[in-house]
């Protein structure tokens, strides 16, 4: 019997705690496979966020730091500046990156820090139980916007990739979707490019992944994938926003 697929060696044997149908696990797998493919084993510092992915430190088979909510780009800056020959990546949710950590992500991008950021946009605060995120769609229900997000009351969703793309620092910014297989394949290509950019010393790169949270969206996993494809991409169009 031939082996057609196996777990990346850049993942540990610890089983993921993510909910069924959650694409955090898919994102982890993509990052791990890319790290393996670019030969980064034994050469990586990961930064885990506060959010559902806080336990990323149990899953990636590399040295890893768990840091304060939203501060991952700052910690990654400290780690990278002191270890310029290492691959440094931060993995952040949308509450982490697009709300409490806006200053950190904007300035790490503006400085062109030679790091890679994996940005999981699931339009909700997963870990704390489904509160509104800065990326929650208008009309989308959350525990703190129970009648649906209203622009007047709650403000509008933030498009981080577009925002960061106007800066001179970033070398590469792309938004991908984890809503279907084709999207996942594209996402992997994007992540590979982001890490290769870092290896080549090109500076800041970020891949925003539209991701599911079936638990807090109150949807079945398949419906959640459909929501990503049909609804989220309307507000968060897929594509490359910066590539130099």
């Amino acid at each position, binding site marked *: 019997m031939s082996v057609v697929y196996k777990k990346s060696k850049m993942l540990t044997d610890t089983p993921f705690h993510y909910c069924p149908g959650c694409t955090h696990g898919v994102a982890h797998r993509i990052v791990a496979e890319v790290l393996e493919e670019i030969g980064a084993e034994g050469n990586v510092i990961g930064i885990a966020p506060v959010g559902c992915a806080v336990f990323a430190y149990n899953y990636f088979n590399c*040295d*890893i730091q768990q840091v*304060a909510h939203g501060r991952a780009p*700052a910690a990654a800056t*400290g780690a990278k*500046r002191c270890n310029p020959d290492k691959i440094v990546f931060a993995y952040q949710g949308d509450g982490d990156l697009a709300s409490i950590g806006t*200053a950190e992500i904007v300035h790490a991008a503006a400085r062109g820090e030679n790091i890679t950021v994996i940005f999981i946009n699931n339009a909700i605060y997963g870990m704390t139980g489904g509160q509104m995120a800065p990326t929650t769609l208008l009309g989308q229900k959350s525990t703190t916007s129970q009648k649906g997000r209203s622009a007047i009351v709650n403000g509008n969703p933030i498009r981080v990739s577009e925002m960061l793309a106007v800066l001179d620092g970033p070398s590469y910014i792309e938004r991908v979707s984890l809503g279907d297989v084709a999207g996942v394949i594209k996402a992997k290509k994007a992540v590979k490019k982001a890490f290769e950019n870092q290896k080549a010393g090109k500076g800041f790169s970020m891949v925003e992944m539209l991701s599911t949270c079936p638990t807090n969206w109150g949807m079945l996993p398949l419906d959640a994938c459909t929501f990503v494809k049909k609804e989220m991409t309307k507000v968060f169009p897929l594509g490359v926003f910066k590539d130099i």
Partner: protein
Amino acid sequence: MRELMKGNEAIAEAAVRGGCRAFFGYPITPQNEIPEYMSWRMPEVGGCFVQAESEVSAINMVYGAAASGARVMTSSSSPGISLKQEGISYICGAELPCVIVNMVRGGPGLGGIQPAQSDYFQTVKGGGHGDYKMLVYGPATVQEAVDIMYDAFDKADKYRIPVMLLGDGMLGQIMEAVEIPKMKDSASFPKKEWATDGTGVGEKRRVINSLYIEPDVLEAINHKLFDVYSELEKHEVRFEEYLTDDAQTIIVAYGTVARIAKSAVNLLRAQGIKAGLLRPITLFPFPTLAIEKLAKKKNVKDFLATELSMGQMVEDVRLSVNGKKPVRFFGRTGGNVMLPEDIVNAVLEGK
């Protein structure tokens, strides 16, 4: 060779000689000379310097650098140190070594830019959340600040804790003749097997973390941290006594205020009043036993704590004296600094 140097610059150079190779900071008066100095000095010695977008970011850069094994520091002044409290709490939780300088200015709020000691509580009682301590020094002279800074990274590495140098605007701005020791040899620094320097994989993978979901595990971590703090209490307490042997009144003061208090002791002695000075050099661990010992002495009648605050360290003096003798307080605030005569009068008022 002794050189005339401004406090802030001498402290920065002492950090470099003590092995500091990474600096992350944000401008604020009265400590700007430290980041300014480091901005050119770090690259010169092969280190890195980043002016962060905020103090929040700066302390988290320190976190990332310390976690990856670097000798790293930041400096700020009171409002900026308030912003660093989140990071300091995480640094303590994750047991990371680093050095932090606070050139204290008056508060609350934006306060003023003149010297103050009103961050004592924030510093020694834990300004961030959770049970933690730092090793805190309150140097009185530029030379003492230099000597403390020179060894601060060794202490931080030894105990895996942040070391804070608590100065004030005066210490930072004053120019004094100082001798800065020679560059430490980095080969003598301890190896950091725990650091996430990127080489870890499989069994050798390292995690820097302050999250412990299991209550029993977190409680064990809290005890482990406090075991370190009791080591500090055993081995790191530092203080100076001046003419305390026969003293009736003990003045307790730290930092630059202790220099003014020393002059006050001399003035009082000239009037035939037996005053003495106890000067804590470490603020945590506090010289509790030394003060308790003085409180037990027959010749000691009373204590006067004097500070540039509304009365913060005085609480630790009272805890140490533990009701054995009266403890009074005299302070100036707002950036005003007392004269030796003011302290003399405060002592005489109690007679």
